[in-house]
């Protein structure tokens, strides 16, 4: 099994950015989400970010809100999310859970970390948890060897970037713009600037998320970041599809396009070599 750190190291060794793909658990169904995530990994995603559906997704745009709402209406439970982690991790690809904080608080942060680690999870991305309120999670993450991934934003001061990166593990999630999740026409200029500022304060890999939806944008982001995170565009493929099979095919196709994108940015001999990760 590839660890999270190894996934970024391998991408770097191939002189390319890592591709991180997001899907919410339980959408369009629990097995459907597993199938889509496995297709995503098979087609070139290096890391899977699995969303834990939550009733109040404060920083998600309409696409992910819609998918998450359907997952919850379909009755998805935390146990299903952990089972999904297990199924994906068993295929050898590192999986992180992306979750708003209240479901973890309710489950009990120690218990959640224990069960996530037992399922083979690599860490947790927490978009509304501040380092200031994260003491219990950081302790549990250390105990269970999970990566605590926090977000950096274009508005973050140097002081805050120092604080965030001091508690981050695995990689730093740099939000490319000020806004919610969802595809954008162009990647903003703030992204490269933020990556540069994060690199001044940490040696952790920096992955950029929010707004990336196609291979061209992935290539653009890959030219300055260690990882490219894509979410809404994948979810859109599933939402737009008439059935699961064509949705999964759409996810596979997009993952392959993005995987080519993250390899185009820095043409070098290593990047031409076929991905030998699996």
């Amino acid at each position, binding site marked *: 099994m590839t660890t999270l750190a190894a996934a970024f190291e391998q991408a770097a060794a191939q002189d390319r950015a890592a591709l991180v793909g997001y899907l919410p658990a339980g959408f369009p169904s629990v097995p459907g989400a597993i199938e889509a995530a496995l297709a995503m990994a098979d087609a070139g995603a290096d890391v899977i970010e699995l969303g834990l559906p*939550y*009733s109040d997704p404060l920083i998600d745009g309409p696409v992910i809100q819609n998918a998450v709402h359907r997952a919850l209406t379909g009755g998805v439970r935390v146990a299903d999310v952990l089972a999904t982690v297990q199924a994906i991790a068993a295929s050898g690809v590192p999986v992180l859970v992306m979750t708003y904080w209240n479901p973890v608080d309710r489950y009990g942060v120690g218990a959640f970390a224990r069960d996530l680690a037992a399922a083979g999870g690599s860490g947790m991305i927490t978009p509304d948890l*501040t380092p200031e309120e994260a003491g219990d999670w950081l302790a549990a993450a250390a105990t269970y060897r999970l990566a605590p991934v926090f977000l950096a934003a274009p508005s973050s001061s140097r002081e805050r970037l120092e604080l965030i990166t001091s508690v981050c593990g695995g990689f730093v999630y740099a939000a490319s713009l000020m806004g919610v999740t969802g595809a954008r026409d162009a990647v903003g200029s703030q992204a490269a600037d933020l990556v540069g500022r994060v690199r001044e304060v940490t040696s952790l890999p920096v992955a950029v998320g929010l707004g990336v939806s196609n291979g061209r944008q992935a290539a653009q982001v890959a030219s300055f970041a260690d990882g490219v995170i894509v979410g809404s565009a994948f979810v859109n493929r599933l939402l737009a599809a008439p059935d699961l099979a064509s949705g999964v095919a759409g996810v596979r196709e997009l993952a392959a396009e993005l995987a080519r994108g993250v390899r185009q940015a820095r043409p070098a001999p290593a990047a031409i070599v076929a991905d030998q990760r699996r």
Partner: protein
Amino acid sequence: MTAAQATRSVLPDESGHFGEFGGRMAPEALMSALAELTEAYLSAKADPGFQAELGRLLRDYAGRPSLLTEVPRFAAVAGGCRVFLKREDMMHTGSHKINNVLGQALLTKRMGKTRIIAETGAGQHGVATATAAALMGLDCVVYMGEEDTRRQALNVARMRMLGAEVVPVSTGSMTLKDAINETFRDWVASVETTHYCIGSVMGPHPFPMMVRDFQRIIGVEAREQVLAAVGRLPDAVVACVGGGSNAIGIFHAFIGDHEVALAGCEAGGDGLATGRHAATVAGGSPGWIHGMRTFLLQDDEGQTLSTHSISAGLDYPGVGPEHAWLHQTGRASYRAITDTEAMNAFSVLCRTEGIIPAIESAHALAGALQLGPELGPDGVLLVSLSGRGDKDVDIAARWFGHLGEDEQGR
């Protein structure tokens, strides 16, 4: 920490905590703005110029101090004690919401921002925000749950008249909590030019503290007015609690007066046992929502539950963290008032005193009808009449069957 100790110290602490409640849980994109807001607010609070300007607006524009009205005919139904209403319903725009909004709008200008956004449930906070925006020349967008835009259509029209854009929110349960989510989403993308004028003592630090400070004038005035009227403090102070800003506003000046009971009245909807209610303290558990640690209505996996109340303004699954703390320390008590109990009290006040209350405030009146008999004829009750009922005439007319079929607008 006990309530007695707490009244000798200043809450919240520097990180916005009231005991274990409050704090600041927010997307990183907003953390700088929250720090900037905290700094700007604390500097404004200490600035006599800002305070003088706010005081002038509250006096000459909003109508402060608000009246204290003794209501003996209502009191006769409440067991014969003396009952005083703090008349926030007489304020400009029809509720206490203007107290907070004028403060935050002034602060918006002080921070050099040109746009103000807000969530609203019943529409009272939205109307107040639209009003302050018109007064101060700020762009204004108000997010309102689609269900609420229907049941409070009159307030939607008022906001538009005042020049605000009203955005119906059709996600989730289409009520106040979803309007708050959508306002936060706007704010994440617009924070450089925009201030989020939160309407209650909720949200991430510094909002619960700042909104409380802007609302505490209710209790400061009422305490003096009751002392002047009866020569002593009231036995109990009663207020409705949704997010809880009018309640914190009237409670705060009395927290150190331990002989004064503080009673919050939450929306009991169809009754606690039915699960169809919005009684957060009485029926909820600790967790995180909208940036704060507090009591909330959630299922066993931390998903927010949908709420029910006849009152759009109380239809919220969380509560201000200072209320959670007042409850935990035992300094204040919280009870659930059903829709039926609230509407009964609404009717009693209309018919005994000629005052039509907001349905939100009718929950406090129902609490007074319950507490009065416990106090007996020597008791003194202070009730926060947080808003007027003009906006609720349609709902109340249907509830009581005051309109025949051919008289109903729709």
